[in-house]
């Protein structure tokens, strides 16, 4: 995923991007090898950050590669977490891994389709200014609320 902004940017950007990608790679490997799940979002954030930086620098109208980036980052995170899930020596039912792989692949496909559709909608209703800002603020507030709810959910709730 780091290759996309690397291919698009100028030499200075490429130099920085390569270093950031290397750090992201090391973080991901460390997360998987050492079993540190907290490093997975760090690696994905670093790669996503280079993409965001490239978008900020390059003032292109609308990047059509965004769905692919979304799928790539999601798959990277999901596969890394899956790998961490499988660190136990548990012996599973036959086909449990295949079913999981199929679910991840289907999720990737669904994300690509949904992201493409979302991009098309964004392209159609694109209106820079207050409306987009408001929508973004609402989305951010919603996600922050979701994060708070998540944090509350992580504290145990017996049943």
């Amino acid at each position, binding site marked *: 995923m780091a290759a996309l902004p690397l291919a698009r940017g100028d030499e200075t950007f490429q130099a920085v991007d390569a270093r950031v990608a290397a750090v992201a790679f090391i973080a991901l490997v460390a997360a998987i090898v050492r079993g540190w799940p907290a490093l997975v979002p760090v690696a994905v954030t670093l790669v996503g950050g280079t993409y965001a930086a490239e978008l900020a620098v390059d003032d292109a109208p*609308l990047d059509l590669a965004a769905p692919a980036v979304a799928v790539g980052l999601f798959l990277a995170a999901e596969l890394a977490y*899956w790998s961490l899930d499988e660190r136990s020596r548990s012996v599973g039912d036959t086909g449990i891994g295949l079913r999981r792989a199929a679910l991840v692949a289907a999720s990737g496909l669904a994300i690509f389709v949904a992201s493409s559709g979302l991009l098309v909608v964004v392209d159609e209703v694109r209106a820079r200014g207050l409306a987009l800002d408001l929508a973004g603020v609402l989305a951010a507030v919603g996600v922050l609320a979701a994060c708070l709810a998540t944090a509350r959910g992580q504290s145990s709730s017996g049943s």
Partner: protein
Amino acid sequence: MTRTGNPRLLGYATLAALGLLAALAVRRPELAVVAAPFALFLALGSRARDPGLEVTVELGAERTLEGDEVPMTVTLRAHRAIDRVDVVVELPRGVELADGEVERSVRLQAEEERTLELAIRCTSWGVYDVGELRIHARDAFRLVTWAAGVDAGNRLKAYPRPVALRRLLEPMQTQAFAGSQVARVKGDGVEYADIREFVPGDRVRSINWRASARRRALVVNERHPERNTDVVLFVDSFTDVRGAGRSLLEEAIRAAASLATKYLERRDRVGLVGFGGVLRWLQPGMGASQRYRLVETMLETGVAPTYTWRDVNIIPARTLPPAALVVALSPLVDPRFVAALEDLRGRRFDVAVVELDPVPLVGPGRSEVERAAYRLWLLDREARRARLESRGIGVATWGDDELDAVLEEVRTFRRHAHPVRA
């Protein structure tokens, strides 16, 4: 069950929040598109509900012999479908899995019941709480984990595996009841003892007609009656010497259980004294129920360290009946136990000692001081053994030999030994 978030949950929440904030900051909707999948998965994950998992654990037996396999069945049933349930079997020390996997993952449909067949094996005798499980149920998106610890509270008693024995130690004196031991006294029995002149009241069937013809007077046979005996197993629980995968206390209990079984089979009364930090005793009795009582008492035997001096006065008098054979099983490491043996012998009990040899389990050490201490310890053991033998106590060392050979050694000593008086 306890609901906890998978690390994925926090990671996706972070990524979604950062992506949307970045979209807002750089005013690029593509970043919102990139963040959207993570937010979508969060929304789907938040819908996960308690699967209502029910777990039962059943053991195929409550009692077993050490080394034998016991079937164990884990039954899982969920009210809602679970994508993956990880079942981890927690086994106590001394119990191992003979068949099956310690960690299993299964998928459950709603109201489906799954059964996991396992087999466990106790590597040594004892009482074990078996049936502790750790359960982790995960939803399809692996964002939420429902965890539970299950303790089925199944108690498994592993009895010591019997040691091969052909002959037992015969006590010097017998008791009043019928048994298998030929008594030294004369009376009604099978074993021929002597002949004597007929006196009025003797039964005609006991007349020895051949001897009567030779002596020209009536002579009757005398016989030894078969009586039972009282045996007290005296187990040293002051210390346990461990090493090289062996435990002398475990071996002592194994031998004691075998001796008890064999003595009870020949209708003797058998009692038990676990002499150590904690005193455990069982009055002599006979029959199959006594065997279970003995073994169950033995299973509780363990080392409870104590520095107080203990002697045989603390043993209840009825536990040590007169003329009982006291078979001691000890590594002869603790002087309190050795003193107790001497005390018992002083009280005219018939005492025999099976010494569980600790020497192969103790290294001589590296330094000169350690080696000197080791040699002194060996000499002290020799002196201790000689002192016991001088009091007429048969001592045989049980190392790698069979217990039968060790008992034969004690038997030989008892045949020829007599107390030495200074």
